[in-house]
């Protein structure tokens, strides 16, 4: 008889204060693509780390091909044919891509490793330069390194933790082709995700976790999104309402913004044109590492080297203004990195308000102003309550909050300031379904109230849900905008490769004919198939 490739029985793992896994059982057959579905914090990642040997369970048994096995560390896991692509990357920042991969494969020389990285990268369309230091990579690029590293060990069981969140739709399809091929070759795949349509497309079996417990085992292809959702969160996520509404006056006008990179592995911004109007949400799609970071630094004022006149808010030229001065003009910004940029990890939520809010400051002339602690705490408490943040109160330190709750607090902090221009990057990265829906709802409410909103995201679904118009950023250039009604996943995906075509308007970059496609997007399409829409 065939033994299951992997069989878990009664796995339990408790941390002080929280039970991450409670009596979890899971069976994966050879060649099966098995989904593990659950919200953030449901215990998926812990379970996978147990299988991969980086966490020891408190109780339970693991059988591999029918044999009980104790996996003491990731090295043993790899020796037993288990490979994993983590959601939180395990890469050393100061080392290059090749050196990082080399760490797990010490038998080979660095040159051999470099060659095999290039080979695997080409085979799967995962474009990466092995000589680059990891700290210069974007999140999306780091994930590519992790995927290549996992594939290089020729695994029998491949664990993928939310692998598609940073890929273009075309790259996702390509990845699915790879995964289906791997499965047909007999490799078992554990696919962790909360994206229901992906699971239903790819997987033939599914184990659903909620609060560390198994709440269901099913074949996702026989289930509906609604039934999976019920298993996962106990309810269906609320539907967003996107009312039609005409856009008002221009609140942010970027014209011909070009900036040389600050960091040698950054991206040069090249002739960016962008207009965001009152009462509309403009989305910017793109694979990470294509200039999003640099554009946002320039827009927020964290990088204020922009040429005079290139960034205007209303009729004011803000190109040379610092973040504080732009904030006074009504610009509020939520950065991608929550801990360390959007919030100081070791400070209380109340004190984190002081980063961008001055409501509790008296006598601003004297040493920057006097902090009224009581008022500050009340303000923080009001935001915690108003935005439904689960936290120990205004004095809880930022790092004690879960990613989703901290994001709700930061978004709340900026929305509560009643901005006239709101810029948000990756609003729901790593945030659970309920919180993501709430944040998207807040963004739309802000738009309905007449605020101009710019959303930069790598999740297309999200952009399609909230945007009125969409741009795509690729290689430091920004595509013309396309109204959401005319945007399709295919078209945006092609644009992500830098292939768009201008027929009108002075404000779009030249067509990208002849240039190699970028990033994770492996589609090569003729330039004339690029989008042709431009709306100011």
């Amino acid at each position, binding site marked *: 008889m065939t033994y299951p490739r992997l069989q878990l029985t009664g796995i339990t793992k408790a*941390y*002080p*204060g929280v039970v991450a896994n409670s009596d979890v059982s899971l069976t994966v057959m050879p060649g099966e693509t098995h989904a593990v579905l659950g919200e953030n914090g449901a215990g998926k990642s812990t379970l996978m780390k147990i299988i991969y040997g980086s966490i*020891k*369970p*408190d109780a339970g048994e693991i059988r591999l091909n029918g044999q009980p096995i*104790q*996996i*003491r560390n990731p090295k043993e896991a790899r020796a037993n044919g288990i490979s994993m692509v983590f959601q939180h990357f395990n890469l050393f920042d100061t080392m290059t891509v090749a050196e990082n991969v080399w760490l797990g494969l010490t038998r080979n020389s660095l040159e051999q490793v470099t060659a095999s990285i290039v080979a695997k990268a080409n085979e799967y369309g995962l474009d990466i330069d092995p000589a680059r230091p990891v700290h210069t990579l974007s999140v999306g690029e780091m994930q590519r390194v992790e995927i290549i590293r996992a594939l290089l060990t020729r695994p029998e069981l491949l664990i993928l933790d939310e692998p598609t969140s940073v890929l273009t739709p075309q790259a996702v399809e390509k990845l699915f082709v790879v995964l289906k091929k791997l499965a047909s070759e007999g490799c078992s795949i554990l696919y962790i995700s909360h994206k229901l349509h992906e699971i239903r497309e790819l997987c033939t079996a599914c184990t659903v976790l909620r609060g560390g417990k198994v709440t269901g085992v099913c074949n996702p292809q026989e289930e509906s999104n609604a039934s999976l959702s019920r298993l996962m969160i106990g309810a269906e996520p609320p539907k967003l309402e996107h009312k039609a509404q005409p856009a008002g006056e221009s609140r942010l006008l970027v014209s011909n913004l070009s900036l040389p990179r600050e960091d040698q592995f950054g991206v040069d911004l090249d002739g960016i044109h962008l207009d965001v109007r009152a009462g509309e949400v403009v989305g910017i799609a793109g694979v990470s590492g294509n200039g999003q970071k640099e554009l946002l630094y320039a827009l*927020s*004022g*964290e990088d204020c080297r922009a040429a005079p006149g290139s960034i205007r808010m209303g009729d004011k030229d803000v190109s040379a203004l*610092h*973040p*504080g*001065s732009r*904030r006074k003009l009504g610009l509020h*910004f939520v*950065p991608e*990195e929550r801990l*360390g*940029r*959007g*919030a*100081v*990890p*070791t*400070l209380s939520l109340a*004190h984190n308000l*002081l*980063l*961008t809010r*001055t409501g509790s*400051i008296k006598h*601003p002339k*004297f*040493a*920057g*102003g*006097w*902090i009224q*602690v009581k008022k500050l705490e009340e303000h923080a408490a009001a935001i915690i309550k108003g935005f439904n943040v689960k936290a120990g109160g205004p004095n809880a330190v930022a790092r004690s909050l879960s990613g989703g709750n901290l994001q709700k607090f930061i978004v709340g902090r900026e929305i509560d300031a009643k901005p006239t221009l709101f810029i948000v990057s990756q609003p729901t990265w790593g945030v659970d379904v309920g919180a993501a829906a709430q944040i998207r709802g807040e963004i739309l409410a802000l738009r309905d109230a007449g605020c101009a909103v710019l959303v930069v995201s790598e999740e297309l679904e999200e952009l399609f849900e909230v945007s009125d118009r969409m741009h795509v950023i690729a290689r430091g250039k920004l595509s013309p905008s396309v109204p959401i009604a005319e945007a399709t996943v295919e078209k945006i995906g092609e644009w992500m490769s830098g292939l768009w075509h201008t027929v009108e308007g002075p404000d779009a970059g030249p067509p990208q004919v002849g240039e190699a496609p970028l990033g994770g997007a492996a589609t090569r399409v003729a330039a004339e198939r690029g989008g042709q829409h431009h709306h100011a």
Partner: protein
Amino acid sequence: MLKLENRPQPSAFWSYGSPLLALLCTVVIGVILFAMLGKDPVRGLQIFFWEPLKSGYALGELVVKATPLLLIALGLAVCYRSNVWNIGAEGQYLIGAVAASGVALMAPPGGSAWIVVPVLVAGVLGGMLWAGLAALLKDRFNTNEILVSLMLVYVAVQVLGFMVYGPWKDPNGYNFPQTKTFEAATRIPRLFSGSRMSIGVLFALLGVAGLWVFLFRTRAGFAQQVGGLAPAAARYAGFSSRGALWTAFLISGGLAGLAGALEVAGPLGQLTPYVPAGYGFAAIIVAYVGRLHPVGMMFSAILMSMFYIGGELAQSRLGLPKSLTGVFQGLLLFTLLGCDTLVNYRLVWKRTAGAK
């Protein structure tokens, strides 16, 4: 195998309790040390922890030594909280003393006592100048401020040496390398007769209150600290990192210079090559033992001062070397770092083989 494991939630009590535990450990190791040296440990402890407290005069002496330590540590706390690593407070202290001496030497005999004001101001400016050099090099050329500020200490020692061996040498001083004794009018006013405590104590206490307000109640102080805790967040908020660098260096340089001026125009009364007493370095330990908190540093400055006095007493009464002071200072810092590690981590015994 013993392993350090991250504690999920460091105990709030022990993060304040660890300096006390560290002191206890220092005392225990001190007892062992005295016993091994063949001295009566009880007598040894008495000299370190009781003698400096037992009379009004002794307490005064304790405060005299604690004052410069506290002033310098207050400034260093601003630096360390904002991720600016000023290790050269000793040099800033020395240049403050030299600058103050320059003004004090110009005082005419029998002049007004108000001369003390320019003497102290000169000390502050001297310290700021020396700290400003390190800030300027960091700002303009991105030099490492740890190295630069530390090396400037040795430059400052040479400056001091040049002045006392050269232009400022007392012509009636039998060729000793020292200035003439300053005019009585330049003497820092004392608080009480019969004690050497001067108005410097008031400056230090004012500094404690001022620093507390600055750090915990003003937006400028908040911005200063965000730069240290999360530089990207400071940039996001729009707090200037250059501003933070200059603020930190100028505050700490100014306070170290003030301490130098108070010392040279106070207990010393003249500039000699023996002004460098290591206060600038000991203040680093004061700052950390006091948790970089103004009130905490008040206690740690007194403790450190006890070690100074205790070391001197141990030399005269027990015949032990004076370097015992340094040993105790080192022990305290060492045990504090150990205790701090155990506040954030716990020791667990793990078998190397086999999962549970």
